[in-house]
């Protein structure tokens, strides 16, 4: 009797300890989300103070959409987090960066983020077959995002459908750009005191312009740190839920695959986590390329939640534009999936390219290296050069 009591009590203690830890972790997540909102507001506020009415002129170099695309691609490839880059873009739009300039940057962030799972797949290089499967399952995401840019960027440059659709939606949500969100925005009273304190403290030490630039830098660093920690915490907290969702998806079709990819990305707040976790499973031959494909597309959609969350932090004259750019991100990714995945000839391009490249990379590893440095760094640079040469 005594034995049974003593053996039963440690698990109970562990349970209560775990639930206590879990509650603490959730409180920490809530605090980090608050910090994210503060950071986005800091960028907006700092950018507005630093640039004033010159925001458009300040980003005149990015008037060329290819430059914007390259900035988004390289920044995300270096920071290794599209959520961080899209949140920064939302913050910049909140400070006056024109949406037209920000759209190619958002598209570039989509390309840049796909380098992460490609790097992860390189770890399987020692086994030829495993490497082939892992590399193909990673690069299918890259090829999809590249194809999406090839289709949508020229259309956007010519007719601005994403900007118009998102503008129309954000007008519907916040009642038009001319109308202030003050009445609806309950975030501002929560974030403004912190931002004012930071700005006032910096104004004592630095000149007004330097203080504003420091606020922007602090905001960028804070976003990066917060998103990193949120990701780490959510991975711990949500792994059980992610398992449940994945179990339910087994044996079902691509629509479920897309949904599950989106849901898991929302749960862990990182598309790279979602697209990377599937790489070793594909490498081991447990999941086929056809099963991985819709799952990674879902990750593209799920990752949009961070920019939307960031947009809720914005108030003032540019709040409608901040929401508009967050919606551009969402519409772009949803349309990409609808257009490319529903048209068989387009749908077949990413898996074919991924398989071809993986076969070549197994034969000669230099192909893999050339691909990564080419797609994420060299070709973007060439794009700027050629477009400047053509005067686009």
């Amino acid at each position: 009797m005594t034995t049974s009591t003593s053996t039963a009590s440690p698990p109970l203690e562990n349970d209560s300890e775990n639930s206590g830890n879990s509650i603490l972790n959730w409180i920490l997540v809530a605090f980090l989300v608050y910090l994210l909102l503060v950071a986005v507001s800091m960028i907006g506020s700092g950018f507005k103070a630093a640039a004033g009415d010159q925001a458009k002129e300040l980003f005149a170099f990015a008037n060329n959409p290819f430059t914007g695309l390259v900035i988004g691609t390289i920044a995300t490839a270096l920071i290794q987090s599209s959520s961080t880059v899209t949140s920064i873009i939302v913050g910049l739009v909140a400070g006056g960066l024109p949406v037209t300039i920000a759209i190619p940057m958002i598209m570039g962030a989509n390309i840049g983020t796909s380098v992460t799972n490609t790097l992860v797949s390189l770890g399987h290089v020692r086994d030829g077959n495993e490497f082939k499967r892992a590399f193909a399952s990673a690069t299918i995401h890259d090829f999809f995002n590249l194809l999406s840019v090839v289709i949508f960027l020229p259309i956007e440059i010519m007719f601005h459908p994403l900007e118009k659709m998102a503008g129309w939606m954000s007008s519907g949500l916040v009642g038009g750009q001319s109308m202030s969100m003050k009445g609806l925005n309950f975030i501002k009273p929560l974030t403004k005191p912190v931002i004012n304190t930071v700005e006032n403290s910096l104004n004592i030490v630095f000149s007004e312009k330097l203080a504003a630039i420091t606020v922007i830098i602090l905001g960028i660093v804070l976003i990066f740190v917060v998103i990193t920690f949120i990701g780490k915490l959510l991975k711990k907290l949500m792994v059980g839920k992610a398992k449940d969702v994945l179990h339910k998806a087994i044996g079902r079709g691509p629509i479920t695959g897309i949904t599950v990819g989106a849901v898991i990305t929302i749960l862990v707040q990182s598309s790279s986590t979602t697209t990377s976790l599937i790489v070793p499973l594909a490498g081991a031959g447990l999941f086929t390329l056809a099963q991985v494909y819709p799952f990674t597309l879902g990750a593209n959609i799920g990752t949009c939640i961070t920019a939307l969350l960031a947009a809720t932090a914005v108030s003032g004259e540019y709040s409608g534009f901040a929401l508009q750019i967050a919606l551009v991100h969402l519409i772009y990714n949803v349309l990409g999936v609808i257009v490319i995945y529903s048209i068989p000839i387009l749908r077949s391009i990413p898996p074919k390219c991924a398989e071809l490249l993986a076969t070549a990379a197994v034969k000669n590893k230099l192909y893999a290296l050339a691909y990564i440095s080419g797609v994420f760094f060299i070709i973007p640079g060439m794009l700027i050069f050629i477009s400047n040469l053509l005067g686009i």
Partner: protein
Amino acid sequence: MSENNSNIQELETKIAELRKSLNELEGNLEKAREGEQHEAINHLEDYINEVDTKFSSFQIFWKTLLEDLRK
């Protein structure tokens, strides 16, 4: 003629039986694959941090590439 007919019927029956067996085998294979997938998902903790291996993965790749080039 009737012998030929019975031969055809016999072959058709055999094909139908084989097809049924093949379908059953394919169903079993699918179930076995799904079982492996469920088993892997049960160990999701091992894969969810895979994203943090990007630098070590690149190091492994770089080392292997250099070894190959030296050969």
